[in-house]
């Protein structure tokens, strides 16, 4: 059995309020295998983004990890010196953010912003790096990459900008790509193209993906395994198909039933949507039970 690429062990983090720490993540553990696409879904505010930021080592001031380990290829990222962490970041672990508009520097050409990756991690000269940047743009199927490299972010549509982000993230062929809701700001048709792009490129290069989304449909179309988060806990984890077929945790079940599914009206007629609140009597108890299925099997109780 291969070693996991990313192994998060019992991660706890919180907001430091003076002396005390207000916990946001109450013990989260999961593993991502090399080349695997892992999805995280969950309620807004359940801690998906902070988990990903913790992996990147990008938590800012009031937020801090209080315990746990983040092992990347066996190395504990939390114990890594800053310098080493920087070398890893972008190079081995890369990230795409939700808002492609604000995630790019408006005053700098996209070509240059991609080229920075090569200068930083491969010690290339700016001239070479710019050439590689054009190549990276063409890799993400941006038409006219030569010209596009010289454009500024505001001259591009949302979809193009997100492609630039992807080009940037994949520039150094990272082992892990973290994508935090990369398509929620995009139109459906554009979203589909971007998703296909991520899927194809990562498959091509064997890049593992940590994919965060609200949208179960998106998760289903990309990920092999899914973790469901609720109130700072990973409450259920399973193979995608198994999770959809036999959700076990109340919240997961609520989630799946709460949304109308395309085609279900014509098959079953209009059915009342499941109201999560009605199936969950006591939200505070929700994190008491967890359903973590061992990899490769159907879900089972811990």
């Amino acid at each position, binding site marked *: 059995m291969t070693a996991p690429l990313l192994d998060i062990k019992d991660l706890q983090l919180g907001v430091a309020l003076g002396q005390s720490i207000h916990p946001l993540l109450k013990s989260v553990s999961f593993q991502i295998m090399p080349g695997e696409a892992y999805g995280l879904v969950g309620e807004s505010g359940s801690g998906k983004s902070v988990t990903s930021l913790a992996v990147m080592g990008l938590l800012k001031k009031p937020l801090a990890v209080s315990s746990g380990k983040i092992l990347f290829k066996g190395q504990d990222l939390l114990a890594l010196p800053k310098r080493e962490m920087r070398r890893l970041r*972008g190079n081995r672990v890369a990230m795409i953010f939700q*808002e492609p508009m604000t995630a790019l520097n408006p005053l700098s050409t996209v070509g240059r912003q991609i080229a920075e990756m090569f200068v930083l991690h491969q010690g290339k000269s700016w001239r070479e790096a710019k050439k590689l940047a054009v190549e990276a743009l063409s890799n993400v199927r941006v038409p006219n990459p030569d010209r596009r490299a010289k454009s500024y972010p505001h001259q591009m549509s949302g979809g193009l900008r997100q492609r630039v982000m992807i080009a940037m993230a994949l520039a150094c062929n990272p082992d892990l790509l973290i994508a935090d809701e990369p398509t929620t700001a995009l139109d459906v048709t554009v979203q589909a193209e971007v998703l296909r792009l991520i899927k194809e490129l990562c498959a091509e290069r064997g890049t593992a993906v940590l994919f965060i989304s609200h949208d179960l449909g998106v998760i289903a179309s990309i990920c092999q395994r899914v973790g469901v988060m609720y109130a700072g806990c990973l409450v259920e984890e399973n193979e995608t198909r198994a999770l959809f077929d036999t959700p076990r945790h109340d919240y997961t079940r609520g989630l799946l039933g709460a949304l109308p599914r395309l085609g279900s009206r014509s098959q079953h007629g209009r059915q009342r949507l499941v109201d999560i609140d009605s199936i969950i009597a006591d939200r505070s108890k929700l994190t008491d039970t967890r359903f973590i299925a061992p990899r490769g099997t159907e879900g089972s109780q811990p």
Partner: protein
Amino acid sequence: MFRFTLRRILQIIPTVVVVALLIFVIFSVVPGTFAASLFADGKRAADPQMIARLNEEFGLNKPLMERFVAYVTDLAQFDLGTSFRTRQPVFDLINDRMWASLKLAIVAMVFALAVGVPLGFLAAMRPGSVLDTVTMIGAVSGLSMPQFWLGLLAMYLFALQLNWLPSFGYGNGSFQNLILPAVTLGVTPLALLARTTRAGVLDVLNADFIRTAHSKGMSEIKVVRWHVARNALVLIVTTVGLQFGSLIGQAVVIEKLFAWPGIGSLLVDSVAIRDIPVVQGTILVIVLWFLVINTAVDLIYAAIDPRIKQE
């Protein structure tokens, strides 16, 4: 870019026209006349014939409308009129004084920039640190002090007690004479620049694209050099423009205190003796200066920020 430039330059015109009208109206109803002010010090008995003669000579007894037409006609030919007091063209008077004012404003601004921007930058890099706290307290204090009070204190300290610098005046135009007034004048823009720089840098540091930069594995220094500096510059340039533009106007008090022969003191003196053509001309020049500087800033802005030209 050319079109943008031209458009911004043409936009100055209506503002100048309105300002010209405004000051004409204001100073046509101002009480007191130049002729009467000649007797203000009581050193001569008032001479009604002479007052009448002077008013006639300056056309002050003509109807307002007629004066207005004459004023506008002259202005349209870039003629600012003739000073009541010196009987020289206002343009010459202003020209004589402009350079002293410019020198003062430029040195004050350079001082403010050289000190304010680095301080603001450092403060923003370490928010909450001692340096940050001290800088920001200093900046609010700088903004809270009456300028002439500060100048007076500086004058007593550096000129009288320490005897390091000349206390007043233009001298023969040497740099030493410039230091005290320029530094005093520079305090306000310095404080404002330190504050805007800090706020601007902090805003940039909180922007999403800085997080992107960090996620690329960039070191702090590179983040600042590659991404923060230029974005913060956009804000700094705006402040510099506004401040630099209004510095000549703000210098009125400082010029008066330090007997600096700029157009600020020319203005105050001319208001005091009701030398209306000079007052109008000076204000116009000060306004024009403000507009030109800000237009220049807009152009610089457009050069820095590719988004501007678009709209």
